[in-house]
């Protein structure tokens, strides 16, 4: 068994763990982590497939795609974190106003 097969299977396993985790968890940080893990798994499979040709250097096209993928995944994570931050801020404000209203009335 050549080493790319090992890494490709490992990438699939990461993707599966991430997908199951995405459905199993409700906490927003866990979901962001799960989607990141899924992304890492897919990228690992791509890089492993680039090594599939037995001789010579690895295929540079998947490498370029994965570089693009990492940068896109960090920007999606950042957007997700920003949205989550906003949600928690709004929720905190809402629960505060809900708490203070009965006392005031």
């Amino acid at each position, binding site marked *: 068994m050549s080493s790319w097969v090992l*890494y490709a299977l490992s990438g*699939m*396993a990461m993707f599966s*763990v991430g997908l199951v*985790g995405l459905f199993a*968890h409700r906490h927003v*940080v866990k979901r962001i982590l799960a989607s990141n893990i899924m992304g890492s798994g897919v990228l690992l499979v791509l890089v492993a497939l680039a090594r599939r*040709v037995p001789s010579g250097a690895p295929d540079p096209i998947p490498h370029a795609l994965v570089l693009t993928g990492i*940068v896109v995944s960090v*920007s999606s994570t950042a957007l997700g974190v920003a949205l989550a931050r906003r949600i928690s801020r709004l929720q905190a404000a809402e629960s505060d106003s809900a708490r203070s209203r009965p006392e005031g009335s």
Partner: protein
Amino acid sequence: MMDVLLDGGLALSLPFLAWLVLHTEALSQAVVLFVAMGLMSALAWARLEAPDIALVEAAVGTGLTGALLMHTLSWTEETTPESHTRATRWVWDILAASALTGVLGWAVLVLPTDSKGLGPEVAARLADSGVEHPVTAVLLNFRGYDTLLEIAVLLVAALGARAVNPRTDRPSLETEDDPLTGELFRMMTPAVLLLAGYLVWVGAHGPGGAFQAGAILAGGGVVAILTTRMGTPRMSSRRVRWALLTGPLLFVAVAVAPLFTGGRLLEFTPRLAGTLIFVVELALTVTITLVLLMFFPGARPPKVEPEGTP
């Protein structure tokens, strides 16, 4: 023998770490494990002869994402509320994940192994691309569309992140009293600048380029936000806006220029290609650094002050 052990260990540890990340109760532990997983996958990519990706993963995927997630934890509760109620479900989780892995793994293992891929084609045209490193040639010449649109994705994400949280958090005042962190930043800055400059320059011949350099500069910038009085760059500043647009504008100009002389979009003449790619990479480095830096929301998490309290 050592190689097989190393590859096998890495290949096993990555999904295991991923599982641990999702099943630890404390969120701070989960984020630390996630960073460890990122470093392990950088190692895996080095083993798969992808040094460009290993560099970007170590700097962006692990460093900056880890910092962002760590920062996230400062405003969220420490343990997930549902973690103790679902302790019995993990057997089913493992079963589902293994079944999915089996199906997907079968789909990959039955792929034909005699395909040569696109490697030989890239190698044949490498002389026309203006650079000597195949990955840089693919990113900025053969598949320039991808990189151009990727910069657009980065800009949109930065705009979106800023649109939902428009206020930047001011740096706290106590950092300036700490002599150690300020000194650390002063000592680190020249090395960071030198390394980033080297990475842009070396992109033409070897692993390196705008993304790696931008990631390292942004990492230095995050340290600056955390240890000095510098705040996150503000979108309202005119200079920040122009710096954000440097990369995309220059890239679009270079992409469109051939249309006026009868060429096609994103077509580089072989004589000028090397210079153009270098200039575009320099401009992209500025934009990537700033975008990645703007993702980091500031030194202090915003404490939501209850409005009714005195």
